[in-house]
């Protein structure tokens, strides 16, 4: 794998280039900036370090671990025990055994608890990037990579799935906190940005490899692999909301809403982000 050279310096250089490209109209400046960022992303994608997480995730899946010293190979991600290929693009979905709609991460928690004997609540309360949450990073990288290039097809057959979508829609528009922000404040209209960061409109289908179809992702700025849970957690932080529980129903409802809205778009997970 080829690693990009000093990736942190690239955006600065490229933006400087965009800024210096002569007298320009605002539209031209915007376009130059966007092009520079797109170029930067393309260079990054050439050597996505998520491959390291994927390899580790596959190994963790097959390694006996936890109090029961068992592997995750019998884990049912919705397509039957042990079926990983294509499972990710159909999550969140309803699971009979737990009676819940679950996203990838809450389902992996279930499997780690039932098959391996881990304490799911304890893992849920563990800070991102440490302990078994690190295991989770690798697992979501691998499982999502097994659906890379497939079209999102989050089910709405079961009443609990439709209910979760309806709750997710209300949560998406729910304004609160000192800034009056909802998800919709930033993600309710296409073509908007925060600073230079493009914002996908998540109340519709933003297209292949955008929004819900671009997570989990490797984050160059922090060197971490983020699942959708961590992505949403950081959104709520910036929304100035209280802390969303890991794998809580609010996060799963939003994932259901975004996933169903993105039906038919191609998942590029694990993607790479600045």
């Amino acid at each position, binding site marked *: 794998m080829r690693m990009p050279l000093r990736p942190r310096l690239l955006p600065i250089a490229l933006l400087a280039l965009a800024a210096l490209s002569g007298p320009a109209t605002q539209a031209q400046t915007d376009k130059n900036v966007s092009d520079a960022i797109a170029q930067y992303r393309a260079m990054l994608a050439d050597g996505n370090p998520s491959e390291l997480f994927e390899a580790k995730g596959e190994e963790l899946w097959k390694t006996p671990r936890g109090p029961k010293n068992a592997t995750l190979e019998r884990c049912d991600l919705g397509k039957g025990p042990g079926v990983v290929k294509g499972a990710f693009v159909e999550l969140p979905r309803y699971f009979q055994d737990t009676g819940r709609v679950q996203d990838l991460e809450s389902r992996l928690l279930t499997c780690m608890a039932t098959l391996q004997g881990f304490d799911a609540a304890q*893992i849920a309360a563990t800070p991102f990037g440490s302990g078994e949450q690190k295991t989770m990073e690798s697992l979501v990288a691998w499982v999502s990579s097994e659906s890379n290039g497939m079209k999102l097809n989050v089910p709405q057959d079961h009443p609990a799935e439709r209910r979760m979508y*309806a709750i997710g829609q209300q949560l998406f528009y729910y304004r609160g906190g000192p800034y*009056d922000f909802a998800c919709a*404040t930033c993600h309710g209209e296409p073509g908007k940005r925060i600073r*230079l960061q493009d*914002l996908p409109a998540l109340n519709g289908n933003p297209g292949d490899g955008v929004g819900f179809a671009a997570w989990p992702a490797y984050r160059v700025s922090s060197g971490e692999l983020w699942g959708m849970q961590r992505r949403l957690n950081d959104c709520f932080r910036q929304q100035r909301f209280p*802390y969303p529980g890991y794998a809580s129903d*609010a996060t799963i409802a939003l994932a259901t809403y975004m996933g169903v809205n993105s039906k038919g778009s191609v998942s590029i997970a694990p993607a790479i982000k600045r």
Partner: protein
Amino acid sequence: MKHRTLLLGAGSAIAVAAAALVGCAGTSETTQSSPAEITAATQATIKASFTAKGQAGLDRLDQDEIQKICSSPTPPAPDIAARLAAEQAKTVKYPADGRWLGDWKSGEKLAQDGKGKTWADPVDKPGGGNCYNCHQITKTEISFGTIGPSLYHYGKLRGVSDPAAPEAKPILEYTWGKLWNAKATNVCSNMPRFGHEALLDEGQLRDLMALLLDPKSPVNAD
């Protein structure tokens, strides 16, 4: 440890608790939930899913009238919007000493600063204005957001050549009102209510006013 995430992990006891809270999960295959039931389920989901952290208490999820009416893909009816905006307009506190403009350089620093009020921010540290997150402001700062309109040449475009002149007064009042409580002019505005919610103090608002309206500010001079 009394942590709400306990409700949300795996296992049958947890599933039962979650199902009881949301009143859902695999009961009837045929019945369709009514909008009122979904709203109740959303409230229950919020209660079960969030915990207080740092300065971000659970009271942040309690909505005031504005937040409630603006939590929908469809805007409120014009008569309701007008009534609520008029109520918000009454909350605007104008500077008592008649000093409208501070220092545009401090205003620019505030406009750049996007920190404050998250669960990770120290409670005693003053927050920033977050302005560039959503607005173009000066010519030189190319890293700006587009959720709000461009504010480049804000004062110039409104003909403010001398902010102390009487004819500038309506623009000063309008701009101060927008910063203090953006919902007074546009009830479901995306913009935070910086004065109303005590996000910025009067001195900070003056500095932002100067950034926008001082003829020497790069917003107008460049």
